[in-house]
């Protein structure tokens, strides 16, 4: 039986390879094969991580990037045919994100994630909410970026934006659910629901950025593209902040 972490690293490299191949896929048949393989390798990468660590270790780089990637694979798999029929470049953006996440997942962490305080069920839910939310945010960003960079007809534009907004809305809801669980964890562990701390401000900033993204008024922007940009920028900041904070804290 091979060492789980060796399998993890191999899968990460395979995900980088297949993510890069998916970037240049022009035909639906090839894309379907590549995306299926990507989903499979990400699942194996995650399984090997959880075999090495505990199934409930959810706070580190590996589970965050892995679960986020699985969310992207699942949601992209659902819309892959539709995207290729409409000549949308959303799968290319998403494969780019997957490649970056696979590179990030190679970062080795020193700090333990199986501490007693993190073992609390509400802490687990809090940590689980982050990767789910990150995956959905990246998917929303991929859709919004497609509509910024591609000249589309009104129908395709409306459809892709509606899907992106749904993904961003769901990301915000999951993030909020995680925050509520985190607040409860904070209360039971440290006796406070509100904290004047850097971590708290960071989380609050991310949630408020979701609200910024979901409250973008059409009337404030001269064109639809500018409006989409207004929707995408907060999401890009959220995604960057979430990924960089994980990598830099490792």
């Amino acid at each position, binding site marked *: 039986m091979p060492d789980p972490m060796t399998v993890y690293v191999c899968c990460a490299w395979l995900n980088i390879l297949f993510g890069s191949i998916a970037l240049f896929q022009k035909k639906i048949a090839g894309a379907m094969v590549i995306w299926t393989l990507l989903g499979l390798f990400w699942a194996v990468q995650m399984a090997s991580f959880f075999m090495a660590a505990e199934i409930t270790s959810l706070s580190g780089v590996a589970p965050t990037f892995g679960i986020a990637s699985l969310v992207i694979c699942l949601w992209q798999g659902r819309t892959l045919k539709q995207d290729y029929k409409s000549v949308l470049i959303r799968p290319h953006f998403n494969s780019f994100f997957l490649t970056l996440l696979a590179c990030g997942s190679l970062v080795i962490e020193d700090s333990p994630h*199986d*501490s007693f305080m993190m073992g609390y069920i509400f802490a687990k839910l809090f940590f689980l909410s982050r990767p789910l939310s990150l995956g959905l945010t990246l998917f929303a960003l991929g859709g919004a970026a497609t509509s910024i960079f591609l000249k589309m007809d009104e129908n395709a534009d409306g*459809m892709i934006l509606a899907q992106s907004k749904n993904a961003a809305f769901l990301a915000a809801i999951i993030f909020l659910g995680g925050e509520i669980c985190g607040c409860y964890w904070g209360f039971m562990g440290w*006796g406070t629901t509100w904290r004047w701390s*850097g971590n708290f401000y960071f989380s609050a900033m991310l949630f408020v950025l979701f609200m910024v993204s979901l409250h973008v008024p059409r009337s404030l922007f001269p064109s639809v593209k500018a409006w989409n940009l207004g929707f995408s920028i907060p999401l890009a900041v959220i995604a960057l902040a979430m990924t960089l904070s994980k990598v830099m804290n490792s």
Partner: protein
Amino acid sequence: MKAGYIFFALLALIFGLGNRLTCIAEYNSIFKNMTATHFLHCLEAIIAKPMMVIWFLFFAFIGICLFINTWCCTITQIKLFFRVRGQGSPKQGLAVQMALIHIAALLVIALHVLDITLIERHKPVKLYPGQIVRMGDYQVRVKHVSYMGLRSMITEGKTGRKRKGLFVLKKNFSQKDNFASIEIIKDLGKPAVLELRMLSPVRIGTNFFFLDGFFIAKGGEQTGIKIHHSYNPLVFIFFAVYTVFFNLLVFRFFTVWVKENKKE
């Protein structure tokens, strides 16, 4: 929506700035004290730092603006609901959902304000078995401390605690075996004997007692505990409102999702 967008963007900026401020030691110590006690207890320290004053005032100002804006949005949504009521159109359902979401958001903001202003936390105290301390209206006596973990993990160095609680591994710490038995007395009444564990505070009415950790002083033998007390009349309402808000958003998401899927 325009005003809401601007206020949200400004609030995100304030939180981002707050996050940066906590990276500076002199500001972080003030923030830590604000968390450990009450922000009013730290007013002098806040006033001494102009940057903190600006940040705090800006934060309060945007918070108030956002509350007023959400209030106006709620009124608009309620008016819309009454306008479309009885038409049986999808607009009616949307208006109800949006009105309820905005009401819940208003309550969330209001509760956060009350949380910041009303809740009183007290700094942790270190106690050994047999010692008595006054916490609010209560007298707390430590009867017995049971610590079965690694002693090296809680033995203090020159500057106090060696490890943060977050880095105590699960395999080295059992919630069941590690506890403190305490006696709580109010106004010479009958003492209540309770077991205090990590992640499992003791509640008496609106007062909570938390076990922050165990310690062995440098060169000492006896195991002591660190506990703190807080007065929190809002905690259950706080989580109830947040849960309602969350469920309303989930319901709204599924409504939109079903509608979009029908369209596709």
